[in-house]
């Protein structure tokens, strides 16, 4: 296991991140419009002065090497847009917020999604199945940009029981609506995948054998069916977890949550190169880490899948 982890870090994670940084570094600079173009056309001398402050007067390879040198020391550089902060400061403040929101949504999505999926599979083609899957389908179809304003309207404007937005350090009442919106999609997807693979597992020989032996259903489910049925869910969880803690752009902008999603979308829109790069590295690292965890989990779920 240790060897697996070490190999994954040094021979895979580091080169992967390096490729990611390099590709991102150059490609985002190819996009039209730079970080310092603004509606008011500033005189060229002014623009040059601003660019000099952010090393953008150097040649591209020099900028790249400079960036790598800083990166090696963990320095992501100054934000090109938010002049009062470095990327490190902004990301350090935003990460706990997004994590808190994302983990809450993730746990809820996992519990509800798996339960709903299993229930639907066990009662396949009954009204339970149809209603669970119907709700799940609506969950996938209903976009966050529709659900978020609707929930705010009902719970904040009409019922006046929850705030319509804000974070306030992550107080419970401020988390309810964003978490609800955020987990909706993932509950639905997890439920659908669980149902599909559970039906498949329940139809397989070894479960039929177990049932023929007269074992009680809940026992079969717990001891035999659940683990193989969860395999595709686990595959989905790696990217899903990263998505849920980093990609909640609509939720964060609508509810005014100071997390990674807002930084990322504004970074991209403002061509805040250092911010986009910093967050890309963060997302890449998370992606690699969680996929590695998923690969380890495979081994627990199905011992035939050995990690090497």
């Amino acid at each position, binding site marked *: 296991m240790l060897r697996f982890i070490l190999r994954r870090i040094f021979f895979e994670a580091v080169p992967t991140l390096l490729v990611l940084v390099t590709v991102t570094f150059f490609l985002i600079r190819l*996009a*039209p*419009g*730079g970080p310092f*173009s*603004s*509606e*008011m*056309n*500033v*005189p060229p*001398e*002014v623009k*040059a*002065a*601003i660019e*000099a*402050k*952010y090393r953008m007067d150097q040649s591209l390879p020099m900028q790249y090497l400079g960036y790598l040198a800083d990166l090696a020391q963990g320095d992501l550089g*100054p934000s090109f*847009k*938010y*002049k*009062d*902060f470095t990327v490190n400061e*902004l990301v350090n*403040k*935003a990460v706990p917020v997004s994590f808190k929101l994302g983990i809450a949504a993730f746990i809820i999505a996992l519990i509800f999604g798996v339960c709903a999926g299993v229930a639907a599979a066990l009662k396949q083609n009954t009204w339970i199945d149809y209603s669970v899957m119907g709700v799940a389908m609506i969950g996938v179809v209903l976009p966050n940009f529709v659900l*978020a*304003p609707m929930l*705010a*309207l009902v719970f*904040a*404007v009409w019922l*006046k029981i929850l*705030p*319509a*937005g*804000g*974070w306030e350090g992550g107080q419970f009442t401020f988390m309810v609506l964003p978490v609800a919106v955020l987990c909706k999609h993932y509950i639905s997807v997890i439920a659908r995948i669980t149902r599909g693979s559970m039906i498949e597992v329940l139809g397989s020989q070894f479960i039929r054998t177990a049932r023929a032996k007269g074992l009680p259903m809940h026992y079969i489910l717990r001891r035999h069916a659940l683990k193989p049925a969860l395999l595709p869910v686990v595959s989905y969880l790696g990217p899903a977890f990263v998505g849920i803690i980093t990609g909640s752009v609509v939720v*964060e*902008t*609508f*509810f*005014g*949550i*100071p*997390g990674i999603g*807002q*930084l990322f979308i*504004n970074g991209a*829109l*403002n*061509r805040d190169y250092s911010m986009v790069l910093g967050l890309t590295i963060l997302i890449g690292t998370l992606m690699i880490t969680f996929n590695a965890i998923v690969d380890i989990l495979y081994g627990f779920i199905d011992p035939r899948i050995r990690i090497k």
Partner: protein
Amino acid sequence: MRDFLKTSLVAIALALTLNAQAADVPPGTKLHAMQHIVIGNGAEPATIDPARVEGRPESNLTVELFEGLVTQDANGKVMGGVAEKWESKDGGKVWVFTLRKNAKWSDGSAVTASDFEYGFKRNVDPKTASYYSWYLGKASNVLNATAIVEGKKPPSELGIKAINDTTLQITLEHPVAYLVSTLIHGSLMPQPRKVIEKFGDKWTDPANIVGNGPFKLAERVVNERIVMVKNPHYWNNAKTVIEQVTFLPIVNQSAEYQRYRANAIDMTEDGGVPADLLSQIRKEIPDEIALWPQLGSYYYNYNFKLKIFEDVRVRKALSLAINRDVITKQILNTGEVSAYGMTPDIADGYKPIVNDWQKLSQSEREAQAKQLLLDAGYNAGHPLKFPLLYNTNEQHKKVALAIAAMWKRLGAVEVELVNQEWKTFLDSRNRGDFVLTRGAWVADYNEASTMIDVFHSKHGSNDGKYNNPKYDEIIDKAKITLDAGERTKLYQAAEQILAQDFPAIYLYHYSNRRLIKPWVKGYGRNPLGRIQARDLYIVAH
């Protein structure tokens, strides 16, 4: 001419003593126990460093945290800030400001003339990398400012000098009558030298920052909120009623609206009236929509580098064919005013002209437009085809679609709408990679020059590269004309050229539009849209 200037200055000084820059609570008003206000502020501000402001989200904050030489009252009238009075010498070329002795920084130390000298010099220093570094040179015409920005002279050569602690002298390149109006800008603040030199780029941190405005920074969470509390050292603090101001960076209008309805926001950002819900707002909370004219214009720029619009008949036809009242009264319907020229009627120092084609009825204009196109060689068989570029935005889209439909009715125009994401759009526009593009200009200060100057061939935002030496000449002359009446005439002459030359299609003048809770009082109708918390108070509710 000099006498005229003197008398007007006396008038300003007199007005000063009558008007205080503070909340003006009528006697007998029952104030709310909690004087806290929450204000929508649009995009997350790039900085709160006055030297580095980029636009409205930043300057909305700097005017609360700092106070310049002059400031504006609730209705936008220029009045003394840290400067108590001022006078001009040398025919308007040298200006001497006398600062009030009781002006203090939030750490208790005195605000002195050298704080302004330091601040202004820091603004133009290329090392500061300020977006508005050009302003002191191009708008205020301060001596050497432009040369310093261009790196040809050191910042120490700037035409500003602290004579003593309370006397500041500003020297200009040439006489400018409206200098004081330009000084209300959110970047022209005194700056605390000691703090900036000690902390560098980190001086704006809530723990470090020192300001001289009515409020001081208490908390800053990027993408969530900025909280300010009353500054006890502010010289006029006794008159400030609001105890705490919270600015929320919310770009999503429907999010802001829901929070406003949930009473979590007292005042939406400028422009924060969701267009699609207007009918509901007008029905349910008609008294909470605040609309008043803004000093800004919305127009479409022709690209003069291309052949297609060389013929003035084509430019005129496209302009005449647009029914502006449909756009302002039916599509936007939030206090915008149809535009027939660049300068809004309300601009200080301007008297509107009525140009010839403006007098025609819409059907007459359309008939003329058809004829003009026909004369220029365009008809149904050989239509005028071009793309219209705008940045992705609901309002721009609506206007563009409406105008495309109006042109379609001419039978000889085919327009293709092209929307681009903001930075891509800026890039296309700055490189001149467009045929017809959306443009807009919002005044930096209240004087016609800030608007009319945009179509000067040397202006940075003359995106269509319109170049008319006669027009430039008039503008250049207006800038150094001290007599207000004379200047107005020059502005009118310039507008007259625009009305014949059609360098752009002027569509409408912006409005200021916000939703404001009925318990918020004390705001006025500032044409620059600025609402300062020090003027506000909250009545019992």
